[in-house]
């Protein structure tokens, strides 16, 4: 174990796998000479050279489309899309390309493509640099969407993604890059299809995504003072969704809150709520509660952004209300 930041853990995963597999090639805006706007690719150009770490032009759809071609040609491309908001520009290459060719070509090609991107609000970055759109790629059959919430998972999920033969979208969170944690040294794999119980509890379950996992743990500590024992589960992977783990907890506690930063309507929490309800309906004492961002674009003002973004307080209140209302 070693103490690393989330950004360093991602860097560690890239470096380790690039040493192991020379088919891995990184491409993205400002990832080479500069080492990435969030420093995730720092030092990799120097170590692996310009054939394996490509600074690209500002061409989001083009980079991902090129990566789709590279993957079909036997390489293992890893694209960095600087902000999830810009992933909007590349969805054609994902939805009509990466998700389609392995299927449509009848299995003649695999698609070992990793798209790393970064989302989330809380940095006063405004409506074009703060969104959480993970529900979009999670809607696509054949594409994995994973969201690490801590440095160890960041390394483990990225390493697994780098060994997958199917496209993986890894959504990082801008506010997590600087957070530190214990990270296993050397090879560390986290499966791409397993949720994890990060705090066991009996009275209610909070199913959380990405940065909301940390907020849920804070809320759980506060609730413990009120003798409420809250289980916290980190979803980690949106697709395939680990319904078994989520539903087992829901059946035990009977009370579920699902928390993600994305907008609520048609967001990731809608699917999780629906899937958990399908699997644990009889044991639920109240409908699953969803927590997410207020349904407006993210305002830039520091005075407005907190109104839009959920946090530990929002979660605590949601659990309190749920416990009061549940039959």
């Amino acid at each position, binding site marked *: 174990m070693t103490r690393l930041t989330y950004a360093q853990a991602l860097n560690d995963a890239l470096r380790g796998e690039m040493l192991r597999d020379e088919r891995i*090639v990184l491409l993205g805006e400002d990832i080479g000479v500069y080492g990435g706007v969030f420093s995730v690719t720092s030092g990799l150009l120097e170590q692996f050279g310009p054939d394996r770490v490509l600074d690209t032009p500002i061409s989001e759809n083009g980079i991902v489309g090129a990566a789709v071609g590279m993957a079909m040609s036997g390489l293992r491309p890893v694209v960095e899309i600087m902000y999830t908001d810009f992933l909007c520009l590349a969805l054609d290459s994902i939805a009509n390309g990466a998700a389609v060719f392995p299927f449509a070509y009848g299995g003649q090609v695999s698609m070992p493509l990793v798209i790393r991107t970064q989302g989330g609000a809380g940095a006063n970055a405004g409506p074009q640099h703060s969104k959480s759109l993970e529900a979009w790629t999670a809607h696509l059959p054949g594409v994995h969407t994973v969201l690490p919430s801590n440095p160890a998972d960041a390394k483990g999920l990225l390493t697994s993604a780098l060994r997958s033969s199917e496209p993986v979208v890894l959504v990082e969170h801008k506010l997590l890059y600087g957070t530190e944690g214990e990270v296993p040294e050397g090879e560390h794999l986290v499966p791409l299809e397993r949720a994890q119980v990060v705090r066991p509890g009996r009275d209610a379950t909070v199913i959380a995504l990405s940065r909301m996992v940390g907020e849920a743990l804070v809320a759980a500590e506060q609730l413990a003072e009120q003798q409420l024992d809250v289980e916290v589960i980190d979803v980690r992977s949106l697709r395939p969704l680990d319904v078994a783990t989520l539903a087992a907890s829901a059946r035990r506690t009977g009370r579920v809150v699902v928390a993600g930063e994305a907008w609520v309507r048609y967001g990731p929490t809608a699917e999780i709520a629906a899937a958990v309800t399908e699997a644990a309906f009889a044991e639920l004492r109240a409908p699953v509660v969803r927590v997410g961002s207020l349904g407006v674009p993210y305002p830039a003002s520091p005075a407005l952004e907190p109104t839009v973004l959920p946090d530990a307080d929002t979660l605590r209140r949601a659990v309190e209300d749920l416990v009061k209302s549940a039959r």
Partner: protein
Amino acid sequence: MTAVIQPPAGVRPAPAVDLMELYRRMRLLRCLDEALADLVEQGLVRGPMHLGIGQEAAGIGATAALEDGDLVTATHRPHAQYVGLGLPLGRTLAEMMGRADGQCGGRGGHMLIADRAHGLLGPSGIVGHSLLLAVGHGLAQRRAGLGRVTLCVTGDGAVNSGAFNEALNMVALWRLPVVVLVENNRYGLSVRLDRHVHQTALHRRAGGYGIPAVQVDGNDVEAVREAVQGAVGRARSAGGPTLVEAVTYRNCPFSGSDRGGYQDPAEAEGLTDPLRLAAERLLARGRRPEELAEADGRAAREIAQAVAFAEASPWPEAADLVALAARWDGEGGR
């Protein structure tokens, strides 16, 4: 540590040494498309169907300039590449009919037939995709350092896609071994060239990227082959990309659902048919009419056999789709 990066090997038909062989391939393509028109009519092929009657020289001339191991990306109108690269036509027709013996087991259909063994990795129904995929192939080829080349086929309409700019810039910047063939058939679906671009000499777009470019008579199969051969040679020897604009004309409906009415009938009048042009040239060079007739007959028979093969092919099983969905969805997906 894995070893060398090997792009997929292709089994390319031997380079066409003479015009007769180019003529044969064009005839095969014409027969294929004529047969497909019938099959669509009969309901044996369903869904969108983009034929290329009148455009045979561009596609056939271009693929004839390639060698074993090169790669090709193509568009929604990819039959010239299917024939030019020597794909087994029985399987190809089976794919278009949605049968089990199709290269893609019926999943891809007429626009999405890949054939790795023949170097075809990237026909796509999305305008612009062929350009982006070619960037990726080019990067892999440059990395492998084996002198292989990617031919990227695209259309006049595609020149206006965002992908065109992004791809041309990247192939220029990284000097990738990519040849971009713009099949300018003077229409993007129903929109005439001068109604979708102001500067109708499309090869001029290359200058802004510092890419050499050439415009050729896209109905002259030898001219196309020569232009593409030059470009391929440059790409192979690390000289970077070239844009080749082949000016031709689509002498058939855009697709099965074409209601017509947007093409100027006068345009079609002075038209050079690529097959007739090649035939006249062959006769002028001393070939006998019977030789041409024989080639025509052989092509017709080959297509008839391919159609028979495809029609006899069973329907694919749907069971594996259900398994795939279960794996991707996780528990309780549907």
